């Protein structure tokens, strides 16, 4: 950990996952996430872990869930088209509360789109890609160093809350290599899923006080049923309206209960700012560059960077944005996060979207030009 090294964003995800105890990867080759599969294939056997190249994206997601059912920490990686294909099984993981992590290295779409160009077009899909009411966590790092740490956190959150966690990378962050010097705060502490309490009958989907049912791995001596059908606390399908309502509210309620632990936001010069930029991922790097340059020029611009995208940090944003002269939301899509920002800010400040959809990163110039226009 001590020495500085050149680390690629995609590579950082792999080492963060391994540090958190991931020992199973299943995936399918897709640009621009392929390096993740390549490096897992090289590293997992060294640790006694297993790598599988499956026949398709759907099978990869299925195998990850299957592995996790035995108690092994499991992960997959993909990009837009593959992320779309995985959605049904992501819904299964959400409904059956199977811990797993999905890395989506975003490329421009829809469809085959621009395989080698960047995008932030999966912001909404990451939250609402699978059908139905479901709990899901989405996080977005902005440097290779943070990709390491946040992948570790993603694995830990998934294990702790029994919620699938999506990591939204993008082509730029996935492919760039940068100097990383790990510090004390980058150390990934391993969190394991909670097991059944000894001496009491095991209810795999028990309505516990913490809303998180204990998990028993297949083969650990607890024979029980896992299904994607809406099920009661015993794990078996139910059509009883009262039970359905209760179990689905518990499952989705985990996000509310643990919201403040899950939500992570980074602030740069926000308090004194006249203008607030809200950006995530690679775009936040351009935005922070603007904050730095503007400061030198005596202009007060701040950045609020959501590291957790879902649950959306609405109250943090509302607090930071209230009374600002302008809130700028640059995104590499036609305006997805800005809708959530509008909901959060609720008229407390004027909001300016800045959307770029040509596969290229929004530049500091483009943001500063908009600021100059507003001022």
């Amino acid at each position, binding site marked *: 950990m001590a020495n*500085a*090294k*050149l680390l690629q964003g995609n590579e950082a995800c792999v080492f963060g996952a391994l540090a958190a105890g991931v020992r199973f990867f299943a995936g399918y080759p897709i*640009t*621009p996430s392929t390096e993740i599969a390549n490096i897992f294939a090289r590293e997992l056997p060294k640790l006694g872990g297993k790598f599988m190249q499956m026949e398709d994206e759907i099978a990869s997601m299925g195998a990850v869930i299957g592995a996790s059912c035995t108690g092994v920490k499991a992960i997959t990686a993909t990009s837009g088209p593959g992320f779309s294909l995985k959605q049904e099984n992501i819904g299964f993981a959400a409904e059956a509360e199977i811990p797993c992590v999905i890395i989506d290295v975003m490329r421009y779409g829809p469809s085959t789109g621009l*395989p*080698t160009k960047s995008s932030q077009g999966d912001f909404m899909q990451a939250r609402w890609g699978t059908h139905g009411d479901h709990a899901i966590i989405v996080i977005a790092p902005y440097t290779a160093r943070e990709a390491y740490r946040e992948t570790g956190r993603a694995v830990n959150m998934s294990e702790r809350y029994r919620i699938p966690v999506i990591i939204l990378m993008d*082509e*730029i962050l996935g*492919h*760039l*290599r*940068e*100097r990383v010097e790990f510090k004390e705060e980058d150390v990934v502490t391993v969190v394991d899923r909670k097991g059944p309490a000894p001496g009491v009958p095991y209810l795999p989907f028990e309505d516990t006080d913490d809303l998180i049912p204990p998990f028993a791995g297949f083969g650990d001596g607890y024979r029980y049923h896992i299904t994607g059908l809406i099920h009661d606390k015993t794990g078996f399908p139910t059509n009883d309206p009262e039970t359905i309502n209760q179990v689905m509210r518990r499952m989705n309620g985990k996000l509310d209960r643990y919201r403040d632990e899950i939500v992570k936001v980074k602030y740069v010069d926000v308090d004194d700012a006249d203008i607030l930029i809200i950006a995530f991922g*690679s775009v936040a*790097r*351009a935005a*922070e*560059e*603007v904050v*730095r*340059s503007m400061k*030198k020029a005596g202009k007060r611009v701040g950045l609020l960077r959501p590291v957790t995208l879902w649950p959306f940090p609405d109250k943090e944003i509302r607090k930071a944005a209230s009374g600002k002269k302008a809130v700028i939301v640059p995104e590499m899509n036609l305006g997805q996060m800005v809708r959530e920002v509008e909901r959060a800010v609720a008229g407390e400040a004027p909001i300016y979207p800045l959307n770029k959809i040509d596969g*290229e*990163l929004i*530049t*500091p*110039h483009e943001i*500063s030009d908009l600021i100059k226009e507003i001022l």
Partner: protein
Amino acid sequence: MGKKRWEVRLIGTGGQGMVTVSIILAEAAVHEGRNVVQSQNYGPEVRGGHSTSYVIVSDDSILYPKIDSPNVMLIMSSRDYRTYLPDLAQDGILIINGEADHGALPDRVYAVPITDIAHDKVRKPITANIVSLGVIIGMTGMVSEEAALEAIQPHVPAKALEVNKTAFALGLEAGRGALKKPIAVIDSPLV
């Protein structure tokens, strides 16, 4: 000079090893404890296509990870340098491979016979990329010779290390003293 920021763009043909050059340059900067970002524009072509890689070396932390106006550009392929000239930062340099056929070159454009050096002097045409690394470092002093040599080693087979060291030295020699006027380093990607 304040905080230095070098923005280097390498233009080549897939398979020439220019992406490796950008990674070596980046690793050399890491060895020196400097901040660095390296990447490339990925095309669907695995071999033979057009490839652009880039490196940012800075004493300050690097946020915006892209290059809009490089102060150092090197074209290894046969592409016309005039296409790239407008991108060049004020008082930056553009190095082109070869010396004949270019006619009179603008002040900021330098022709260095990189392929010829690899072919005639190193007698290993495959080392042209390492010659180009030497040329860049010789002209700019962006990273130290020692850091570059340390970074080269893991990227070449052990038995080819000596010949690559020779290639690097010949590149350095060709680059040193070639500058006609100093290169302006970049203050910030916004200015």
